């Protein structure tokens, strides 16, 4: 067990190091600052004091960059190893395929979570300086649910990268993430408005696709609504773990059947 943990931690450390070595985080952080800093000094019609628009744009950028980082990190876990054939010495250590898969997944998740933590910390400082409200409970909840989002999206992309080409996996997962965040909540009403096969397709998406909109509480955070009930929050995190578990089980099955 101890050896298994050591193997998993070594594998995951590699993924985290790769994110920081590629300087993706620094680039997106700099980009966010370039966009947000001039906006923070806007005084529309000569009236200052508005702050929610900056919070909203900051949260939008955090979500956008977390999707980019989450997808980017997890889609690169296996294909480069297959291409450069470095997967052979890795499996010859000996490390089981399941251990490699889980270790790499954990690494991608840790890398994404660490990036998002930096963003949330910067957001907390921005809100604290502008509005004088430091680390509200709803901010913690938003960050926690964002981690839930990353748990699902990294597992889904990892599965995609094992069953299709990296570019196809990236496109499909990006479409799923954006589509579900935008329309996930309205799928039942959209299905009800349809007739024929369209209705059943939408219902199938509603029941099967990952409900990533569960993790998006930007509205509560920006407009200072109260927290989500903690039992609901726990249920949503349990959903994330179960969905990610299912994706990883399928990924493990695909990895085991893969001819190397």
């Amino acid at each position, binding site marked *: 067990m101890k050896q298994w943990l050591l193997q998993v931690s070594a594998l995951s450390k590699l993924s985290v190091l790769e994110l920081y070595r590629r300087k993706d985080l620094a680039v997106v952080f700099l980009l966010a600052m370039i966009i947000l800093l001039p906006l923070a000094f*806007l005084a*529309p*019609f*000569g*009236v200052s*004091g*508005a*702050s*929610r*628009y900056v919070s909203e744009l900051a949260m939008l950028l955090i979500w956008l960059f977390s999707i980019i980082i989450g997808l980017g990190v997890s889609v690169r876990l296996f294909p480069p190893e297959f291409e450069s054939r470095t997967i052979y010495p890795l499996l010859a250590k000996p490390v089981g395929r399941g251990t490699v898969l889980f270790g790499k997944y954990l690494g991608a998740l840790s890398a994404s979570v660490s990036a998002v933590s930096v963003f949330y910390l910067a957001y907390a400082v921005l809100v604290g300086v502008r509005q004088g409200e430091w680390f509200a409970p709803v901010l913690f909840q938003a960050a926690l649910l964002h981690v839930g989002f990353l748990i699902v999206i990294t597992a889904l992309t990892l599965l995609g990268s094992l069953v299709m080409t990296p570019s196809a996996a990236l496109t499909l997962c990006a479409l799923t993430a954006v589509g579900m965040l935008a329309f*996930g*909540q*309205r*799928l*039942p*009403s959209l*299905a*009800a408005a349809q007739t024929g096969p369209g209705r059943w397709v939408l*219902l199938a998406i*509603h*029941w099967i696709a990952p*409900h990533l*909109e*569960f993790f998006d*509480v930007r*509205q*509560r955070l*920006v*407009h200072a*609504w109260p927290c*989500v*009930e903690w039992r*609901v929050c726990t*249920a*949503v995190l349990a*959903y994330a773990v179960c969905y990610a578990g299912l994706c990883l089980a399928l990924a493990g099955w695909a990895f085991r059947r893969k001819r190397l």
Partner: protein
Amino acid sequence: MTQPFQHALVAAGAFITVAGGHLVPHLFPGRMPQVAGENVVAMLLGDARQELSFALLEKADDYFHGGARHAECEHGLSGTTERLPESCSANGHAHEHSHHSDSGTALSGRSFDIWTWLNRRIHVQEHRHAEGEDARELLPWLWAACRTSPRNIQAYESSAYVLGRMLGQPREAQALLEEGVRLNPESAALEFSLGELALHALRDPARAEQAFVAARNTCRPVEGEAGEGDRFLLGRILFYLGYLAHQRGDRNRAENYLTEAEDEVPEHVGTRDLRRLLNRQHENERKEP
């Protein structure tokens, strides 16, 4: 030898490009795809900026509702011709309409849908109205709506409303409406808003009358249903003009506006109120010795 020749060639090319750029508008007047003096947003977006401007106005409306989108809510900044009533800002508490649980009503009514149940508990299902200093939060989106498309009359009206009435800054609202009038000289609605602002917030009847007269001159309702909105506006303009004439003791002018209102919009509530106002004056004059 070659290098100086290349430099001269580059300089000549640059000169021809600049001269051509200046010459082309004079050679093809009125046939250029872009209008001189238009800003970058106008050139880049074209007619799409009107749509973008409406989207930004809707965003401001969402902010008015505490971040929630409620198209059916009767209190709003956009989507209705009659803007925010006074009762709305007094009603600042969070409340819920019967249509709030629209996501999945048709399906979840039959069976329990866990995903819809979770969504309803995660995403805010009620809304509240921005009031007082909270209205500042609407300004960035309203500002962006005005700047994206200066043709968006509703953006100017809503921005002036928020500045003048909700934030108590009528001077800024006046400046904005005057800018709107300058950019949309054909808009009677903006002149009317300027008149209302001058009368109610700035207590300047002379400026108000000037704006209402300008609004009267630009308001030309067309026949049929298409002109319904303009006819309603005309009724309000004529009421204010009659009222202001009555206030400064110009009875003939007030009677003239009433006659005009009875000809143009006889059923309008403003016409009825103006008639009542002038009749009351007649009665008072008769009673007095």
